């Protein structure tokens, strides 16, 4: 028979995602987002997200099953995000996953959200070469990973020391009086701007680490705005957005390509919500081509948080023969990336 059918459940932030995956094939999925409820607050409100997850949980499971054309009784294993993420949000998904696993008499696997962002690429581009370097960029994370095996060997090379890249976009968007989430409007404005018009700092540039820092950049944008105020200079949104974006993607792609070269890795995966950014895709494509590295970026709908990434990682964990999680599985808001499977 074919590979096992995995039901994946993701509730770590503001998307309730459910998907059905067999091996590297996505059979069907469904995502319910509470992003609209957070817009007026300019960021994700944990209690609002948790309430939305509870409301959306079982209806989203049903929609995913319908889209996949399978029955709940066909499912062979349940995978769920155990962390990292928001405590109350994670708890809704894990509680539901345990109940589904018990009722179906199938094993439960609590898996790592960050590794899921890498695993999801297999659904689009097939099995990942071993090893692979992965750059995860979203509102919640900015991580550079060395992935030898999705289920058993993921090493963190670097992380942000302050804001996540997507968080910097949100904060700068608010400064420029652009809507939340900040990624798309800044990306759009930047396309009309001159990235060389202003020189913003590149955090942790050339410091010999694979860590990132974006809070200095955010402060520099704020200072530029205040300075222009004082001197009565016009504030050209497109130029500020383009220069900010160039600073972000320059550091991200430089460090990612350096990591590939240092570790002799020929494949770079970029995933997470910010992977949809056009400047990041363009510059990463150019630098990877120059260095002879294959660049893999999942389609935008798989880059943002969803159940498919969790089911895809669940499929790897089952294939590796790892033991299921106990029913007493705890959520872990800061689950380290070195643990693809929570214990």
């Amino acid at each position: 028979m074919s590979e096992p059918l995995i039901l994946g459940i993701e509730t770590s932030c503001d998307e309730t995602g459910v998907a059905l995956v067999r091996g590297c094939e996505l059979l069907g999925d469904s995502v319910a987002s509470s992003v609209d409820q957070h817009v007026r607050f300019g960021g994700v409100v944990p209690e609002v997200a948790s309430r939305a997850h509870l409301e959306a949980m079982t209806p989203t499971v049903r929609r995913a099953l319908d889209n996949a054309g399978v029955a709940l009784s066909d499912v062979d294993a349940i995978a769920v995000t155990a962390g990292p993420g928001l405590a109350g949000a994670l708890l809704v998904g894990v509680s539901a996953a345990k109940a589904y696993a018990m009722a179906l008499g199938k094993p439960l696997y609590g898996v790592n959200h960050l590794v899921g962002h890498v695993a999801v690429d297999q659904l689009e581009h097939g099995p990942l070469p071993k090893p692979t370097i992965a750059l995860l960029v979203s509102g919640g994370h900015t991580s550079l990973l060395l992935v030898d095996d999705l289920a058993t060997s993921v090493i963190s090379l670097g992380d942000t020391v302050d804001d996540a890249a997507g968080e910097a976009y949100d904060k700068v968007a608010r400064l420029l009086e652009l809507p939340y989430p900040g990624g798309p409007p800044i990306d759009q404005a930047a396309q009309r701007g001159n990235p060389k018009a202003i020189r913003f700092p590149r955090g942790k540039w050339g410091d010999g680490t694979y860590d990132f820092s974006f809070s200095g950049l955010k402060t520099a944008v704020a200072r530029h705005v205040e300075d222009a105020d004082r001197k009565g200079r016009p504030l050209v949104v497109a130029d500020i957005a383009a220069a900010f974006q160039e600073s972000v993607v320059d550091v991200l792609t430089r460090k990612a390509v350096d990591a590939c070269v240092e570790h002799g890795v020929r494949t770079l995966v970029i995933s997470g919500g910010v992977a949809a950014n056009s400047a990041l895709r363009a510059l990463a494509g150019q630098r990877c081509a120059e260095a002879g590295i294959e660049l893999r970026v999942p389609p935008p709908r798989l880059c943002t948080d969803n159940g498919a990434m969790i089911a895809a990682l669940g499929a790897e964990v089952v294939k590796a023969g790892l033991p299921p999680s106990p029913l007493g599985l705890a959520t872990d808001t800061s689950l380290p990336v070195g643990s693809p499977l929570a214990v």
Partner: protein
Amino acid sequence: MLLLAFDTATPAVTAAIGETDADGAFTLRASASSVDARRHGELLAPTVQGLLAESGLDLAELDHIAVGIGPGPYTGLRVGLATGHAFADALGVPCHGVTTLDALAFATRRTEPFLALTDARRKEVFWARYDDHLTRVGEVRVDRPAEIDTEGLPLIGDGARMYTDALGSPAVEPYLPDAAAMAELALLRLHLGEKFPEPVPLYLRRPDAVEPGAPKKVRQWVK
């Protein structure tokens, strides 16, 4: 008729399996409770697993699920509801909501009026007035203990125990809900054909969230 009941709206994680015969006579098949306000998510599923082992029953034999809808601190409360919804969905059985204070009140078997109070944190309590163990008067409310007119009635629940000074009367047991009473109450309601509240949390407060103010300065943007 077999029913699984559980509640995670208070520091207790409590679960029980009850059964009624055709005449509505109740038998408790298994029950278990533990108190750990921070580990609802870890404790509930193993507790239910333990009940099944103890009673020799299979989840597939259940006819109904009943779950406490609070009120209670939200993170723990949602563990029970998410579990109840998923069980009901997977097993194809109905999931009924039971107000947590109603289960606490039912356990007293009292035939005279009393108040039931549970901890709402932030120096407030969730509370309701009962004419007897089956009859709540009005809605459940959230208030500061000193603002509640206790009418000199007996006060049950951990909310009463935490604020005896402000309430001006001592607390009497039970302090925390027991799913055994919740299962019996739910089966009684089923037998009588009474309606249940929806299995959704009783949120008596809005989420804490502040909308950012308008920008302080009016700036001239070149868009």
